[in-house]
């Protein structure tokens, strides 16, 4: 009998996250039209540009945006130490302006919190946004499912 495990993380995007995404694309591509021109010429050459174009196009028509991160193996548990899970839980319930503020709230060393956030952001479990000179951490994870199927 084969037993498979899958970890499915559902992310909930707020309007402010979508606004940030569009701001990031404007910075990268200039405008929607310039991205469109680029994609029409290059077609399938750049999967990232094509996906950004499609998401931008449908977001501007008011489409709902759902995101999920799936782990086909138990690798995620290497990333999720109790301290990192505490960060996720704190950020899911509270807003902080900077990593410094988060480390103060959690009464932890700044460097350790920074390292944990970097590890979590690698797997897109947290977002680190530049705000002025600070990096603002946030967590858009709304559901964390572990499915174990026989």
């Amino acid at each position, binding site marked *: 009998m084969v037993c498979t495990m899958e970890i499915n993380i559902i992310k909930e995007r707020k309007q402010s996250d979508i606004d940030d995404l569009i701001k990031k694309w404007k910075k990268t591509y200039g405008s929607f039209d310039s991205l469109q021109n680029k994609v029409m010429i290059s077609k*399938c050459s750049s999967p990232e540009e094509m*996906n950004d174009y499609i998401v931008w196009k*449908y977001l501007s028509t008011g489409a*709902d*945006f*759902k995101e*999920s991160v*799936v*782990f086909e193996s138990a690798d*995620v548990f290497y990333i999720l130490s109790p301290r990192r899970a505490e960060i996720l839980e704190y950020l899911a319930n509270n807003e902080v302006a900077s990593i410094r503020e988060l480390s103060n709230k959690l009464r932890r060393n700044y460097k350790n919190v920074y390292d944990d956030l970097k590890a979590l952001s690698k797997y897109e479990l947290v977002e680190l946004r530049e705000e002025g000179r600070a990096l603002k951490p946030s967590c858009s994870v709304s559901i964390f499912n572990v499915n174990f199927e026989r």
Partner: protein
Amino acid sequence: MEILKQKIWVHKNEVLESLTVMDSGKVRFYSHTYLVKERGRGWVPYIKWDNWDRQPHVDKYDSSGALVEQRACPEKTAEDALKLVKIFRKNLMTMDISQL
């Protein structure tokens, strides 16, 4: 209209990035890209299934991430693409993509 973006970690440093746009229960657009993180070069696409211009096809990229081959193929869901990636992930760079 609904956009579903999925990042599926197949293995350490290997992901399937899937984007599906649904309209009233029908798939309007899909793109499923298998990427591998190469040392010093970031994420490199290996294979992509999509229906750009409403033409379902599969794209193959070389080790530098440049598009080298394109073949028509039946529509694929993220689950279909994931199954193929899991079976062929070690051979995707060298195999004949008409088999996909």
